[in-house]
Every structure is written in C-alpha cells, then in structure tokens.
C-alpha cells in the first residue's frame, strides 16, 4: 500500500466523515496540516480567536446535527479553545477538536508553545487522545468521530504531535467501529417501557419534562406524537426548547428558574413526571425536596449517570430518546386499554387547571410608553421572522428573554450555552449556523456585555460571507448579575455597570457591517425590518429599559413554586 503523510491522512479522514467546513486558527505546530488544507476541497474558516473556532464548530453542529470540527495550534491556541470545549461538553454537542502539539521528542520538556492540553481537557471532553504512534492516527480520528456523535454526544479532542503529522503512514480501509469498552444502550428495555406506559395509563396529572436529549436524538416527532396521543402538557428546559412546538396548545414553555408559572406549578402538582433527555439540573429543579414532590418519575436518558443523580427515579429507561419514545408510542397503539379520546377526557380537568395557571400568570411584561422593553424586541423578532429564524444567544437576561418570548416550533432553532452559560457564545455560534444554512436568517440575541467577549468574530462573518444579525439588548449593565444584586444584595451594583461601551453602530461600520439603532419603541420594528431586508451583516443596538428584570424568577435554592412574578 502506498504511504501518505499524516496531513494527507487527516484530510482523507475528514472527507470520509463528510466534513465540508472546519473552523480554526494556524500556528507552527499545525503548519503542515494547514499547508495540506490549501489543496483540499474542505472549507477552512479562519476565526479571530480560537474560542470562536470551537463555538462556531459547536453552532454548526447544533444547527445541523453533524459533527463540528475545529483545528487549533498548540499551547495558547489550544488553551484558548478550552472554554468553548467545556461549553460543548456541558450541552453534549458533537465536536471534534484537533490541536497541534510539539514533536514527541520534546513533550514534557516545557518546549515552546507546549501545554498538556490532553490533561487540561480531560474533565471537559467526552474523551481525548494524544496520538503518539503515526500508525494509530487514522484509527484514532475515526474513533473520535464515532465517540463524538454516538451515545450521549460530546466533544472529543485529538492532540497531534508535529512529527506524527509529518510522518509517512498507510491509510487503512474503513471498517465499522466496534469498541468493547463503549457500547451505549440505544434500545429501551421492553419491560421498562411497559412499566412506564402503564404508569401513564394510571396518571391523572401527568407532565412531560423534556430536555436537550430530545433534540440531540432528533426525537421531536416521536415526542409530539406521544404528548398529543396522551394529551399530556409539555414543559421544556432551555436546551429542550423546540423539541416540542412552542405554539402547540399543550406547550407550557420553559420550566425552572425563569420558567413559566404554569410549567413550574404543573410539575409541582403533577402525579407523573415523564422526563425525556433531561438531567434534573439545579436551574430546573430549584430546591430538590420540593421538586415534583407528588410525582412518580419516569426518566428516559441514554446516559445512565444522569438517572437518579439528583432525583430518585421510579422507572428508569436507559435508551436513545427517539427509540424509547417510539417504543412507548407503539405500546399505546397496540394496547387495548388505551384510547386517545378517553385519555383526553380523563386529563381534561388537569389541562383546564394548567390553562388556568397560565391565564392567571402568563409570561408578560409591563409596557412603558416609548421605552423599549427587551421582551418586546424579542416579540417583534419572533413576529417578523415567523418564528422560523435560527436564534443564538449570549448569556444573561438576553438569553432568558429570547427563551421566553421567541416561540420555537422546530428543533435546532435555538442555539444557546445552557450548561456552562458562556458569555461570548452567541456570535461565533451564529456564524457556524449561518455557514451551514446560508439561506436561513440567523440572529444572535446579545447583551451589551457578552457581545464584547467575542466581538472580533464580526471580521470572520465578513470574510466568509456569513451575514448574521446581531440584536443587542443594550441595558448598559451586566444585567443578569445586576438583577441578582437588585433582588438579593440591596441594589449594591458592584462591577455590573458598563460605564463604557463602544458605539455599536460605529463599531459595525468599522467591521464593514451595517449598524442600526433604536432608542424608542416605535423604532424597533423598522430597525428589525431593515436588518432582515438586507443581505449584509448587521448589528442592531436596542437601547432597552435599563433595569428590567427577568420574571418569573425562582430565587436560587427556593422551591420552584416560590416564584417572583412580574
């Protein structure tokens, strides 16, 4: 068999995996690979900071369901990527990150731009590798893609010593990957499925509590089928939004710390909680002993460690969400004890109760004449995009308002850093999503603080013709932290006032983008219209009411029924 270089082997592996776009930033340790990239048909997107590369790969992955790929140099290139790797890890996003490394002979010598990135990322990757034998390079890359995208997905890092990439090697034929130490359980145990379905038949006040797992396993259709078949209301986590249509009458919207009144009440009063691809995060459960205290709990998750980690589960189902939901749907279809109509009638009093909660305290805000309310901006974005844009967010109040007021009817429309809460995620992720779907409107709902964390990626958006729209809800504060200070620290605004922010309209111009500003309510709609009408990169600067809060709010450590309301 003829031999090829490590660089050539890596490119061939990427082609095998169907990778069309990678995000990266070069340096000495990866210069060979960059040289080879020039001759390949893989599109390389040069970001302006390595954090941006991995976030963009992550946004690409969330939007498409495919594996996102990033390429970073050794040392500072690799460490710059760590926050974004941890972001992908916390939200179980399939990403493969290649990092350059010093030649094998120098490893451990504190060589120039050497860092133990495998050691550093061990706790924030699904798995990682240092390729120490050229003959293992190809197998390692194949395994990395397999690990990243199967089971509970996650980021995988491959550290590439420079001399390994430069060596000659054969390119073995591709075979199906079998790992004896890694065999995720995909199909549910039929006995557990039956138990779960029987519990559903008995329940009077059931609630579906769905998370990012539904989206990761593309189970939204199966989920919707189950919810409608059984007439069960659906509460979604931040990561689960879009897993069930937000405008469906059975939707309770988001639950948890900034969830809707109806969703938190419904969970608290439920007698059966059906958790699907969710992990009982503290932002969802609030005080644990008060979370769904009367409910029997069914938990479907592909990761056994998620089950009974925070909350004891009565009926665990370890499986891919899609497979488990399918099995439940067909159990009901085959069951003689079950009729959708009778079930709906049985649940009617519960559905009425849930609707009353929603009518009593709907998601809302106070209008104040001319002043731009941030929630209003999201409502207009929702209206003018028909609820069909890809929305990325930064972190803070902007993120919560986007989650509350944009109505996500489809999966993979909300790309947001849920688990790690990484400010600076939204813009690079939006670029990744836009490059995957050039014909879709992609909007980064941003805060004036967060946008400055990766603002440099505006240049990337320009260079690669990724005309995303950035909507800054400019409150002049690190608003979410300010809100906590207002509520729990006597309004002592320590380090949350953004005394200096750039003029975002001028900044847009400096990057060759369009800058638009609205300072009054009636300017919001025209600004958004203009932004959507142009095919250029746009920054919209909305001067919103400065001390607006996100409500409902469950104070940290409180029961989810103890909500502060508007």
């Amino acid at each position, binding site marked *: 068999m003829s031999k090829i270089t490590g660089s050539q082997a890596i490119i061939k592996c990427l082609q095998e995996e169907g990778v069309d776009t990678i995000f990266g930033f070069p340096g000495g340790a990866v210069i060979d690979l960059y040289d080879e990239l020039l001759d390949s048909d893989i599109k390389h997107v040069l970001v302006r900071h390595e954090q941006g590369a991995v976030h963009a790969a992550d946004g690409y992955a969330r939007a498409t369901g495919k594996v996102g790929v990033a390429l970073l140099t050794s040392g500072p290139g690799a460490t710059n990527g760590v926050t974004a790797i941890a972001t992908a890890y916390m939200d179980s996003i399939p990403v493969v990150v290649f990092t350059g490394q010093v030649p094998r002979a120098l490893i451990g010598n504190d060589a120039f731009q050497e860092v133990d990135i*495998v*050691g550093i990322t*061990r*706790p924030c990757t*699904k*798995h990682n590798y*240092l390729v*120490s034998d050229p003959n293992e390079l190809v197998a390692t890359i194949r395994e990395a893609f397999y*690990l990243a995208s199967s089971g509970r997905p996650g980021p995988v890092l491959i550290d590439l010593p420079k001399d390994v990439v430069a060596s000659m090697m054969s390119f073995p034929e591709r075979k199906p990957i079998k*790992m*004896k*130490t*890694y065999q995720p359980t995909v199909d549910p145990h039929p006995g557990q499925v039956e138990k779960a379905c029987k519990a559903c038949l008995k329940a009077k006040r059931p609630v579906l509590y769905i998370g990012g797992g539904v989206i990761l396993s593309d189970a939204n259709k199966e989920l919707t089928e189950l919810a409608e078949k059984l007439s069960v209301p659906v509460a979604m986590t931040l990561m689960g939004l879009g897993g069930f249509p937000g405008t469906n009458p059975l939707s309770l919207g988001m639950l948890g710390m900034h969830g809707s009144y109806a969703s938190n009440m419904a969970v608290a009063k439920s007698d059966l909680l059906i958790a699907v691809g969710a992990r009982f995060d503290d932002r969802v459960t609030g005080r644990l002993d008060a979370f769904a205290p009367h409910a029997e709990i069914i938990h479907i998750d592909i*990761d*056994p*460690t998620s089950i*009974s*980690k925070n909350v*004891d589960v009565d009926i665990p189902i370890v499986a891919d969400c899609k497979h488990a939901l399918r099995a439940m749907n067909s159990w009901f279809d085959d069951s003689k004890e079950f009729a959708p109509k009778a079930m709906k009638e049985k649940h009617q009093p519960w559905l009425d109760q849930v609707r009353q909660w929603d009518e009593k305290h709907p998601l809302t805000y106070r209008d104040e004449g001319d002043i731009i309310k941030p929630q209003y901006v999201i409502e207009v974005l929702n209206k003018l995009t028909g609820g069909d844009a890809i929305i990325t967010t930064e972190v803070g109040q902007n993120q919560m308002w986007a989650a509350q007021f944009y109505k996500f009817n489809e999966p993979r429309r909300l790309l947001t850093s849920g688990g790690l809460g990484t400010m600076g995620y939204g813009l690079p992720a939006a670029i990744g999503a836009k490059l995957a779907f050039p014909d879709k409107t992609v909007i980064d709902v941003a805060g004036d603080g967060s946008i400055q964390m990766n603002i440099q990626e505006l240049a990337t958006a320009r260079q690669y013709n990724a005309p995303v729209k950035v909507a800054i809800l400019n409150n002049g504060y690190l608003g979410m932290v300010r809100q906590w200070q207002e509520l729990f620290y006597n309004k002592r605004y320590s380090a949350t006032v953004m005394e200096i922010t750039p003029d975002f309209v001028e900044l847009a111009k400096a990057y060759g983008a369009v800058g638009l500003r609205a300072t009054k309510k009636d300017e919001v709609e025209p600004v958004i219209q203009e932004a959507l009408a142009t095919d250029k990169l746009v920054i919209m600067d909305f001067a919103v009411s400065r001390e607006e809060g996100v409500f409902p709010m469950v104070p940290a450590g409180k029961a989810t029924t103890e909500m502060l309301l508007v």
Partner: protein
Amino acid sequence: MKHTLSVLLQNKPGALSRVTGLFSGRGFNIESLCVAETLDPRVSCMTLVTRGDDSIVEQITKQLHKLIDVIKVTDITEGEFVEREMVLIRVKAEANTRAEVLRVIDIFRGKVVDVSPTTYTVEITGPESKIKAVIDILRPIGIKEIVRTGTIAMARAPKN
C-alpha cells in the same frame, strides 16, 4: 459504608488519571487505590476502596463505566470476596524490645525483612483489619516508618 471496587481498564497512558480525576472532580473519596497489569498486558486491574452511601457508590460505578478506557466495574463488596494488604513497618528494636517485636509479628505471621542495630523492618500481609491490629500493637513499642500498599481484592470463586 465502605465499598471495594474492582475496575478493569485499558493499560493506556492517562487512563489512571481519568479515574483519579473523576474522583477529585466529582468530590468522591478514595481511601486506597492499587493498580497493576493483568495477565493481558493491555489491561490493568485496579482495586479501589471508597466510602459513601448506596446512591453515591451507584453514581461512582456508573461514572467509572462511562470512562471510555474502563472495561468493567465490579463492586465486589456485594458478594463474598478476599482482600489483602501488605504493610512494611520499621519498628524500634533495641535490646529490651526485640523479643517483644518478634513475638508480635510471629502471632501475625509477619516476617523481618531488614535489620539495623536499632530497628526491625517487618512485612505483614492480611485484610485491612489485621493490618490495623498490628499497627495498634506495635505503636507503643515505637514505629519509625510505615508504608502500606492499599487493598487488593478478588471476588471468591463460585463454589460449584
């Protein structure tokens, strides 16, 4: 409660630190840890002693399983098992205590493996309880140094 876990893992660089990193990162405690190659040099066996209530040990077991390098995890405390630990103790052995030291280690079936004008170094093997008993008895005589291996354990073979 004390649990002894037997973990088979791939004998690869970094595999051990994945396990120890898991314990420190998630706040699980490790009382002792022993690891060495099995008959198959590509596989290591680790005996890990930890403490925690059932739900914590269940989490530990699942988290260990989730590590890609881990092949098998058995909580051997769930069934019958044998456990052994070895200790080296350097104990003061002067004219007036030498006989006493020898008598004690004889009772515990230990042996003297090194001698100096003022000390004996003794080797004793047994379950943790026995090691503890020896230490308690030798302490008043004067222990100068002590090195323990940590526990290794094996489930008992089925009787039929």
